[in-house]
């Protein structure tokens, strides 16, 4: 019987304070990923590729080997690493600017190839690190520093649903969208991360978990207001759930 940690800091997460803002989703998401790595007992063969964005410094928090990518290129670096050492468990951790704007080509093709890696995609509908500009996933009407009257489709186009797009590709084996807006959602998110890593370990193809995450700082909300905004504003456009599961496995 495998013992799963139910409380306490996961071994994979280093005992250091993070640079994330109060109420930010990254802390919880980091912890979920670390718990899954611990639970699967794969810390010593896991490699993370950090993005450019708020999570650029995540290798300061995860006790695993790491690359830091250029903006949007994490899937290509992960591909190079995995092709050299197929026994490794390789995952990219990317924000919406990284995965859904500047790195869209890499994001689509890593899935199209069915590359046996996992992407943790954190969608908070805004550019966090650079101070709150419009993201490709910014909702229509949402105010950002570059859409001060709210995002208008006539000039700024429409928010992009990455998970739905990736799920159409045969190489993508597991695709799920989750959130960390409630204890129930956190528990479901952890299950999705675990399935994504298991999909990779079993060699079934590419796996993607999109997190809807809150950014109280750039949304100009309290943490409580921001989790409510995820549920009331984001979830209707970005529905939660598993979009694709490997046929023979689940």
């Amino acid at each position: 019987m495998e013992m799963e940690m139910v409380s306490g800091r996961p071994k994979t997460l280093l005992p250091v304070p993070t640079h994330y803002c109060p109420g930010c989703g990254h802390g919880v998401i980091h912890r979920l990923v670390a718990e899954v790595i611990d639970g699967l007992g794969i810390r010593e063969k896991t490699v993370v590729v950090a993005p450019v964005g708020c999570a650029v410094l995540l290798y300061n928090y995860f006790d695993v080997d790491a690359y830091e990518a250029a903006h949007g290129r994490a899937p290509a670096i992960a591909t190079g690493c995995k092709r050299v050492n197929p026994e490794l468990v390789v995952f990219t951790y990317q924000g919406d600017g990284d995965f859904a704007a500047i790195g869209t080509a890499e994001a689509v093709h890593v899935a199209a190839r069915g590359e046996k890696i996992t992407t943790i995609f954190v969608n908070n509908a805004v550019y966090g690190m650079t101070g709150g500009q419009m993201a490709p996933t910014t909702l229509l009407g949402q105010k950002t520093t570059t859409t001060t009257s709210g995002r208008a489709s006539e000039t700024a186009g429409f928010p992009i649903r990455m998970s739905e797009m990736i799920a159409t590709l045969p190489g993508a084996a597991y695709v799920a969208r989750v959130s960390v807006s409630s204890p129930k959602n956190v528990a479901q998110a952890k299950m999705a991360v675990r399935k994504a890593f298991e999909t990779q370990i079993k060699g079934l193809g590419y796996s993607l978990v999109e997190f809807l995450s809150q950014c109280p700082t750039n949304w100009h909300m309290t943490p409580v207001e921001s989790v409510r905004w995820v549920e009331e504003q984001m979830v209707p456009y970005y529905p939660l759930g598993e979009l694709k599961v490997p046929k023979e496995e689940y």
Partner: protein
Amino acid sequence: MTEKKFMAGNEAIAEAAVQAGCRCYFGYPITPQNEIGEYMSWRLPQVGGCYLQAESEVASIYMVFGAAGAGTRVMTSSSSPGISLMQEGISYIAAAELPCVIVNMMRAGPGLGGIQPSQSDYFQATKGGGHGDYHMLVLAPHTAQEAVNLTMLAFDLADKYRNPVMILGDGNIGQMMEPVEFKSPEKPFVARKEWIVTGAKNRPRNIIKTLFLDPVILEKRNLAMGAKLREAVKNEVRFEPYMIEDADIVIAAYGTVARIAKTAIKILREKGLKVGLLRPISLYPFPYQAFAQTAERVKSILVVEMSLGQMVEDVKLAVCGKSRVHFYCRVGGMVPSYDEIVAEVEKIAKEVK
């Protein structure tokens, strides 16, 4: 035992890479270097390696980043427009001090330009190309055999200096067929790579990164990179002096143009003119000293390039006004003929008299 094989430059480079221990190739098709990727696509699987056709040159160079960081010998190849797309990644590779080999079979630019041979990426190759303070080591073969030898050397240099190394050729070098032989190095260079990403088992985690927000730390890293490159400048200058001992006029040319210059020199010598060639093999580091010494006793140096004048700037820098530096070029994919070079030298010889 080695045997001679009749091969095009591009294929010779690919085979040389495999024999040098290259086990990963990532690339995107572009003329005139497609034979490298095509060769690798069947050859690498034979030796348990990985060939992958990427979605772009941008992705290719980051796959190279990932594979180099995982500890394997890895290469990519492209031609001018594709190499431009890779510049961001080359800067990151240099910053992360990852060893890799990049082949550029230059075609005429700017823009899409053409697919005929050119040497107009000299600045991009030797002076940076991407952002930040870094240099690739750049090697320029002028025969298929030299392409083989330099490709093997390139992997050793990449490992030795933890730096990207470029093989800078052109359409001619890549397409021309010549007999080549593959000699394995007597002492294969094996680099210790304790910094690679393999999973943090029984050791602290390794991190391959290029972000250093503290300028005190970044300055230290930049200075260390400068010291490393100075070491390469000290050790890795390569050039071929050809009939320069008694020469009154010296031609400076590399790659394809150097071959043509050799033919021109034979004709000129038959005409009684003492002409030689100083051929840079390493374009970075550039053989400044060899040109400085040549300028001490030669009145005229003729630089011939398939560019509007790029290497000529380095020659002028080396010569420092001590001899006259003349320049002749063909551009846009046109290759200078030996007749043109003969005529240029004769013109200079008349002026000197």
